[in-house]
C-alpha cells in the first residue's frame, strides 16, 4: 500500500516538474497551431479595437497561394534549391572540420574557438551588412578561380549550383558551428581500440573512415541534417520568411493568407525531413 502511494507521489512530482512545458505546449503551441490552421481557411480582418473578424472561405487561401500568387511558389522552389545545395555542403564541411579537430593536432582549442565563432555572431542583420559589402565573398578565390567564366560553358543545371556554392561559401560555412560540435562529440566517443584493431589488420586510414568512423556517426548525420534544416528555415533571410511576414500586414491578403502560407511551409519542411529520413533508413537496411 505504501509502495503504491510512493509511486503515485512520484508521478505527481514528475508532472510538477514538466508542468511549465505541459502548460506552454497546450497554450502556446498546440492551441496556436490549431488556431492558425483555422485562420488559414478564413479571410481575417483586424479592426481598430483589436477585434478579429473571420470569414470562412474554404481553400481559397491555398488556391491563391499556388495558382495566383507567383512569388510564393517561386520562393518555395528557391528555398528548396537552397536546402538541397547548402545542407550537403554544410554537413560535409562540418564532418571534415570535426575529423581534422579530432586528429592529434596542436592548438586544437584555438581552432575550435574560431570555428564556433559564427554561432556567436550570426544574425540576419550582420549577414545582411556583410553581403552588401561583399565581405562574404573571398576575393582571393575569385582571383585564382574565375568561377563564373569557368562555368559559363557548363550546362545551367550544373553551373548554377556551383556558382551558388562559391558565391555563398562563407555564409554556408558560417552555419556549421553547432554541427561541427555534434560530430566532434560523436567522434570522440568512438572506441580507440577499434581503430587500433583495424590498423593491426592492415586497414588504411581511408578504409577505416568508411568502415568504422562513418557508420559510427551515421545517426549524428541525421541529427545534423534536421538541425541544419531547422536553422535555415528559421533564418529571416531565406526566401520564404519575408513573404509570410509581409502578408500578415498586407491589407488585401492578411493573417488568414499568411497562416495558409505558414502551413504550406510547415508541411514542406516536414516533408523534406521526412523524405530524407526515409531514404537514410532504407539505405541503412540494405
Amino acid at each position: 500500500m505504501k509502495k503504491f502511494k510512493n509511486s503515485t507521489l512520484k508521478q505527481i512530482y514528475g508532472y510538477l516538474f514538466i508542468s511549465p512545458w505541459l502548460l506552454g505546449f497546450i497554450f502556446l503551441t498546440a492551441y496556436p497551431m490549431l488556431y492558425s490552421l483555422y485562420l488559414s481557411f478564413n479571410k481575417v480582418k483586424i479592426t481598430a479595437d483589436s477585434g478579429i473578424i473571420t470569414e470562412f472561405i474554404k481553400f481559397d487561401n491555398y488556391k491563391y497561394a499556388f495558382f495566383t500568387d507567383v512569388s510564393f511558389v517561386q520562393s518555395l522552389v528557391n528555398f528548396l534549391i537552397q536546402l538541397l545545395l547548402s545542407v550537403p555542403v554544410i554537413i560535409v564541411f562540418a564532418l571534415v572540420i570535426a575529423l581534422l579537430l579530432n586528429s592529434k593536432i596542436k592548438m586544437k582549442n584555438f581552432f575550435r574557438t574560431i570555428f564556433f565563432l559564427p554561432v556567436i555572431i550570426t544574425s540576419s542583420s550582420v549577414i545582411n551588412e556583410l553581403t552588401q559589402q561583399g565581405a562574404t565573398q573571398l576575393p582571393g578565390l575569385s582571383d585564382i578561380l574565375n568561377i563564373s567564366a569557368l562555368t559559363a560553358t557548363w550546362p545551367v543545371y550544373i553551373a548554377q549550383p556551383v556558382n551558388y556554392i562559391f558565391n555563398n561559401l562563407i555564409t554556408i560555412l558560417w552555419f556549421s558551428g553547432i554541427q561541427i560540435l555534434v560530430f566532434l562529440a560523436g567522434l570522440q566517443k568512438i572506441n580507440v581500440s577499434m581503430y587500433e584493431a583495424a590498423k593491426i589488420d592492415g586497414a588504411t586510414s581511408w578504409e577505416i573512415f568508411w568502415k568504422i568512423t562513418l557508420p559510427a556517426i551515421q545517426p549524428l548525420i541525421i541529427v545534423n541534417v534536421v538541425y541544419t534544416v531547422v536553422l535555415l528555415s528559421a533564418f529571416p533571410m531565406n526566401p520564404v520568411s519575408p513573404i509570410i511576414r509581409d502578408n500578415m500586414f498586407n491589407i488585401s491578403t492578411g493573417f488568414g493568407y499568411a497562416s495558409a502560407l505558414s502551413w504550406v511551409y510547415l508541411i514542406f519542411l516536414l516533408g523534406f525531413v521526412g523524405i530524407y529520413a526515409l531514404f537514410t533508413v532504407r539505405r541503412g537496411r540494405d
Partner: protein
Amino acid sequence: MERTESKVKSPEKMAKVKRILLGGRGSYGVLGNIFIYMLLIGIGFVYLYPLLYILVNSMKDLEDLLNPMVKWIPTHIYFSNYEKAFKVLNYVPTLTQTLYVVLLSTIAQVISSSLIGYGFARYNFKGKNFFFILMIVTFLIPQQTLMIPRFLMFQKLGLLNSVLSFFVPATFGQGLNQALFILIFYQLFRMIPKSLEEAAKIDGANDFTVFARISLPLATPAFVISFVLSMVWYWNETYLSSLYFGNAIKTLPMQLQSFVDSYRLLFPSGAVVTDRLNESVRMAGTLLTIAPLLIIYFIVERWLRESIDSVGITGE
C-alpha cells in the same frame, strides 16, 4: 648516379623516411600533418575573413576607402566612424535594452529548461514518452507557423511591445530552440547516479530539495551551454523581435537593420562630404553590434568548451 644511390640505401632506411613523411602507426607523418594544418588554417581564414574585413574597413577614413591601393592596412587609424556609428545606433540605451530583453528571456529559458529536463530524466509518469517525443517534434515547427497565432494572442493579452512576448514562452518551455536546451539538461540529469538522490531522501529531503541542493549544483555544464547559446540566439534574433516588439523595444541587431535610415535622420544628406554614409561607418556599426557578444564569448569560451565536452550538445 641517382639509381646507384637509391640502390645503396637500405630498405630499412627507406621505410623510415617513408614513415616520417607519410606516417605510420599512430601518426600522420610530416606530409600528413602539413596537409592537416594547411586545411585548418585555410578554413580558419575563410571563417575569420568577414571579421577581418569588418575590422579593417571600419577604421578607414574616406581617403583610404576610395584609394584602391589601400586594402588591408589603413594608412592611419581612424576612429570617427565609431563615433558616428555609436550615435546612429544610439548605443548605450540600445545596449541596455538589448541586455534587458536578452538576459530576462535567457534566465527564464534556462531555469524552465532545467526543471523540465529534470522531470523527463528522473521521473516515470504516464505519457512520459509521448510528451518527450512531442517536445522534440516541436523543435521542427517553424517560427513562421507559430508567430501568426501567437501575435494575435499576445495582442489580446497585452503582451505585445514588451519583453513579455519573449519572456512568457521561455518560462513555459516554448522559447527559442528550447527543445534543445531541455534535451541538454535531460541528458545531464540522466548521468547523475540515482544513489546520490536516494541517500539524500533517506535523510528526509523532499524531491524539490533534492533537485535544488543535489542535482542542480552538478548541472553546471548544462547551465553554461544553455545560458551562452540561449543568450546568443535571443541576441541575434530579429525576425520575431521586430514583429513582437514593434518600435517599443529596439535591440542592437534591429537597430543595425535600420542603420541607413537612422543615419539619414542624424546626418541629413551631408553638406560635408565626410559626413555622408559610407561602408566604413556601416562596418563600424556592425562591429559595435557584435562586440558585446564577442567579449562575452572570449571570457566564457574555455568554460563553454569544457562544458560541451562533458555533456555534449545533442542526444545520445
